């Protein structure tokens, strides 16, 4: 079972080595990188390339580790017992499976994506140590142990909002998705929009990297934003010549796809103002 990238996803060699190591040694793979560099997409593509099902667990700030295993609905059981419902005799009726349980119980190998693990509470990763390490957990209510018949491929993404505990990191393989260079980005654009006008792409990407290099941006535009922007440029049928920026008007065409907060737009307007003053 080897991951070699897919038709819709350009994977560098270092990414492939990391994914394959995680698959072969059955360890979780922790993926970090700037927002919009395709961390979540990686899990989807690995699942597709290997022909496996994907189970997604999207972590929020209120998510607790236990919810990934199971939840015991004591209130329903109490209510059913009051109403004389026969179901309440079996405690298993009130145990709701979490995503980890689903992944462990699947009869085929699956890809489990734990998305944005850094969103949760600071102790969240610690609570999952044993479960991810041994791929088993104990259900106190029923006294059974859930063990993964087929160890799932676990891919964990993080946006670096919180640092993860060392004990957790030790159990993972790690990969940092770097922002692609121009050549790779060109390949990515080609994969997404085959048959696009090459001179437009070149002009757009050149300008895109110039924008990324402006210092003081609050949020640098990333791969997914570049793709959106190029799609808009194509949709509006803008020619490469139109893209050439006049220093007096520093805001790029259709900048809404690239600059996502008003401070950044102001920054560009200020730069344009300064350019006008110099003349």
């Amino acid at each position, binding site marked *: 079972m080897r991951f070699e990238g897919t038709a819709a996803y350009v994977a560098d*060699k270092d990414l492939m080595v990391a994914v394959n190591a995680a698959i072969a*040694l059955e360890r979780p793979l922790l993926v970090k990188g700037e927002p919009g560099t395709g961390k979540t997409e990686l899990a989807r593509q690995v699942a597709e390339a290997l022909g496996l099902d994907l189970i997604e667990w999207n972590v929020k700030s209120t998510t607790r580790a236990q919810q990934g295993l199971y939840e015991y609905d004591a*209130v329903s059981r109490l209510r059913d017992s009051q109403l004389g419902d026969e179901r309440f005799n079996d405690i298993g009726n009130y145990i709701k499976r979490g995503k980890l349980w689903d992944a462990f119980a699947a009869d085929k190998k699956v890809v489990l994506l734990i998305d944005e693990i850094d969103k949760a509470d600071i102790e969240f990763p610690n609570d999952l140590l044993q479960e991810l390490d041994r791929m088993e957990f104990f259900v106190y209510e029923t006294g059974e142990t859930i063990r993964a018949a087929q160890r799932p491929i676990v891919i964990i993404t993080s946006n670096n909002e*919180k640092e993860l505990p060392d004990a957790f990191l030790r159990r993972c*393989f790690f990969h940092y998705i*770097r922002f692609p260079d121009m050549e790779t980005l060109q390949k990515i654009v080609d994969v997404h929009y085959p048959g696009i006008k090459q001179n437009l792409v070149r002009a757009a990407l050149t300008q895109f990297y110039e924008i990324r290099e402006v210092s003081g941006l609050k949020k640098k535009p990333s791969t997914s934003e570049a793709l959106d922007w190029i799609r808009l440029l194509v949709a509006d049928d803008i020619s490469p010549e139109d893209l050439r920026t006049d220093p007096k008007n520093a805001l790029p065409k259709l900048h809404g796809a690239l600059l996502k907060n008003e401070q950044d737009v102001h920054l560009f307007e200020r730069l344009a103002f300064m350019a006008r003053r110099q003349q």
Partner: protein
Amino acid sequence: MFLPFFLELKAAKIPVSLREYLSLLEGLESGLVDYDVEGFYYLARSALVKDERHIDRFDQVFSHVFKGLEALSGDAGIDIANLPEDWLRKLAEKHLTDEEKKLVEALGGFDKLMETLRERLEEQKARHQGGSKWIGTAGTSPFGAYGYNPEGVRIGQHESRHRRAVKVWDKREFRNFDDTVELGTRNIKVALKRLRRWVREGADEEFDLPGTIHATAEHGYLDVRTRPERRNAVKLLMFFDVGGSMDDHIRSVEELFSAARAEFRHMEYFYFHNCLYEGVWKDNRRRLSETLPTFDVLNKYGPDYKVVFVGDASMSPYEIAMPGGSVEHWNNEAGATWLARVLAQWPQAIWLNPTPQKHWGYTHSIGMVRDIFAGRMYPLTLAGLEAATKELSRRH
């Protein structure tokens, strides 16, 4: 067989453990990468490094340990005629990292090193190879190329001689990420966790089991009770010194600020410069037009707030002790008066100082502020932060 590599990683302060080393060996055994140096590099990086900040240091160690991968080639393009000029040019180009700077200091400082180099250049007129004093190649003198003196100054060697074998790691693309910060925000958050006081407030969202049992027993039917979630009710006021000498500490202060913001719901912050006077501000860009009177702040926030001052307290003693001592404006009352008012309003106040504690004795004003705060000044390190939170949480 990779143990020396592992030990060097440890020595370079990359947090690797035996567990990670074993998983690297396991990965090699399972034949993930056979006869492929680049693949081996990627596998080792993925297995041993868990934080992008460490990748640059990892690359350096990797290139250092595996530099024997390609045999040494003798004629690496040194043009004898151009040597001295070239040497000096390369020297000027050399970027010194922090470790290297320390090494230079060990040799008596950069200037001393350059001086010695100049002397030796004058003494020596011919190309030299081997040996331990002269400038040449493959020797152990601190000057020259292809040598093994780690304190050496590389001269006339255009690129790493191992470039062909060792390519990816010598690019060191992760350079930006490497920062040897003492405090990560996780550590700060854990330290700040001490400052917690749990109170139930807000919407009833949590199932209250004892309450439900009690109500059910009382009413004779199932009466589900809920209660608000527990929240951290500590209230915190932070005053940050900005500008001037504080510019050296921006990073650690920023980290403290972001960790505190994430950890406390009731947190307010204000800025001041050097010492607290009659005005503070919330936005550094509009500090001159939008100052808030310190009296308003004193009146607005009750004595249950805990107060943290962050500043290096390094200034002229007049700025604390005398009316009109401020460097920026005319202050009618001395800084010490304002600090005394703060302490009267908020008894639970401490001062965090990013200056290393061992230097405190050299600055008179630090001692003065420390006295005003009755000794409650702590260094901005993990240990200091812990002591500070302990002090702050002594009284609720």
